[in-house]
């Protein structure tokens, strides 16, 4: 490495360890650190309403879920139409525990980081189990198998009294070092928790993807015959991909339950599964940054359309039905447009912008 480590120019790798770095230069590292600090500090500097904070919390929780979905669908190439159900598994793990031992038991209010991991573990178990058909099935047939899990999940929750038949099961307020997290601070508190989880998981997955465990996922996507010849069991790799996705979904589910202080079936329906898929597609399948762009884009779009609908119904009350239909309509349109014109998602725009800035002022 040459003297100036701040810029890539003139720096050549002389060891394979150098090549492994996530950030090639100090500049990249500094930008990333500044960005992270900004994310953590800005709520302290500005006045943010709880409603807006909830939107952000929602985006972050969805990001955790999409990291998982992107691993299984984007990297391993296995379409999962039951991702909301896996998120539901996480949420209902917590809810069921709350129902059994009381919603303000110490375990739930104080040991919540452990609970979140537990939700993830349960998600991974279910993921591995639902992934078992991958040993035999491929492509759309496998997708239908995941769809069947979604259906079974919804029916189970809706009909078993154990799960309150899909009605919300409440979960108590959590404690932090300063005591119980109050109603006023609730959304801010979970913003920080979710943000920390997204950052930690993001970095962990970034590491995973450049290791043998990440490469094997892409191998079974690109060519599972060759993957077999390279010495990995393609079926088990797929099951492991589902387990991994289940883990992230489970953690997202746990977060969701804590955030809304309860779990109800309406957040884990088939429609939500499709929304998750849309987020992964719009963000960019098979890219890590896609898992961050997708949820943000879709949720913000949702919000804008909602505002538009409100405004429209206010000025033209007669066309209320039409205005309500606007939301699914735009949603569908956005997916179709992305599939047609930018199948690599927003992550690809990000890539283009980055390479432009990197090369500036040269064209190539």
């Amino acid at each position, binding site marked *: 490495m040459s003297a100036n480590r701040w810029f890539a120019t003139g720096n050549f790798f002389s*060891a*394979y*360890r150098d*090549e*492994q770095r996530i950030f090639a230069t100090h500049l990249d590292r500094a930008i990333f650190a500044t960005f992270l600090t900004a994310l953590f500090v800005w709520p302290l500097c500005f006045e943010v309403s709880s409603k807006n904070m909830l939107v952000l919390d929602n985006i972050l929780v969805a990001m955790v879920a999409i990291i998982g979905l992107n691993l299984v669908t984007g990297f391993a190439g296995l379409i999962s139409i039951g991702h909301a159900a896996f998120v539901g598994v996480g949420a209902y793990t917590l809810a069921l525990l709350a129902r059994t031992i009381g919603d303000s038991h110490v375990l739930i209010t104080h040991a919540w980081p452990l609970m979140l991991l537990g939700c993830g573990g349960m998600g991974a178990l279910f993921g591995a189990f639902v992934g078992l058909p991958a040993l035999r099935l491929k492509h759309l047939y496998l997708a239908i198998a995941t769809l069947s899990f979604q259906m079974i999940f919804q029916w189970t929750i809706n009909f078993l009294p154990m799960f309150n038949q899909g009605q919300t099961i409440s979960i108590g307020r959590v404690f932090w070092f300063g005591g119980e997290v109050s109603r006023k601070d609730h959304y801010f508190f979970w913003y920080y928790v979710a943000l920390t989880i997204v950052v930690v998981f993001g970095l*962990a997955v970034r*590491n*995973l993807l*450049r*290791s*043998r*465990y*990440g*490469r*094997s996922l*892409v*191998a079974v*996507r*690109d*060519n599972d*015959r*060759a*993957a*077999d*010849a*390279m*010495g*990995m*069991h393609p079926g088990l790799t797929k099951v492991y991909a589902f387990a991994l996705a289940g883990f992230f979904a489970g953690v997202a589910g746990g977060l969701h339950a804590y955030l809304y202080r309860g779990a109800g079936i309406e957040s884990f329906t088939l429609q939500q599964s499709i929304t998750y898929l849309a987020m992964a597609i719009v963000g960019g399948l*098979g890219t890590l940054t896609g898992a961050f762009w997708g949820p943000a884009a879709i949720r913000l779009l949702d919000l804008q359309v909602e505002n538009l609908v409100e405004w429209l119904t206010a000025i033209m009350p007669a066309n209320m039905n039409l205005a309500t239909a606007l939301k699914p309509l735009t949603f569908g349109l956005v997916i179709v447009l992305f599939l047609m014109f930018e199948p690599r998602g927003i992550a690809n725009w990000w890539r283009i912008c980055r390479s432009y800035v990197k090369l500036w002022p040269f064209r190539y």
Partner: protein
Amino acid sequence: MNSLVVSDVTLAFGGLYALSDVNLTIQAGLITSIIGPNGAGKTSMLNCISGFYHPTRGAIRFGERVLTRASPHQVSSWGIARAFQNIELFRGMTVLDNLMLARHRKLDYSFWHAFIYMGRASRQEAVNRAFVEEIIDFMELEPYRKHIVGGLSYGVQKRVEVARALTLEPQLLLLDEPMAGMNIEEKEDMVRFVLDIQKERHTTVVLVEHDLGVVMDISDQIYVLDFGQLIGSGRPEEVARDPKVIEAYIGEN
């Protein structure tokens, strides 16, 4: 080094016999070719050896190991690598990642190390990256290291395919038509690689190939298949004179 013994192997798909009672011995350290007309069962034979098909009857042994019922990932971990006839690379990945995938079994750090990517994981990756570089150097793939495989030309893809098989550090390398569809220059290169693989890397090579000129020039031993049956075997000059082989495959003059 181990030699591969195929004894009385029959492969049947219902009433269709792709291979019937084939006996082969592939001696360690030599280049053995399997030739024959289209549909003779050459690729089926390789599929049986590498575990993609399991023979209906008969046995395949590699040294002490019995390959008859083994799956491809087992076979590859026992030192038998294979380059496919129709390129079966990981198209969406770079040449480097394709080769690193072949080191999958050699990297044995745990899942948790992979998450943190320090210590063991990083160290092993670097060591194996160095080995991959050795193969890249050997197969002269330096210009393509970071290229996405799907975008490379056919001849280069074939070379990556062989390189990936070599990265497994096999004792026995199965090459399924490595020269098919190549021009003279690329063929000459590939022949040079095959000879180097045998001589420098001390690897046994099994070659399935239609280019008789190449086969006759570089093989130490040839087996001829026709309609799933072994119709001739021996050194190249013996096979070239064998009337049954001439009738079935080589033709007069």
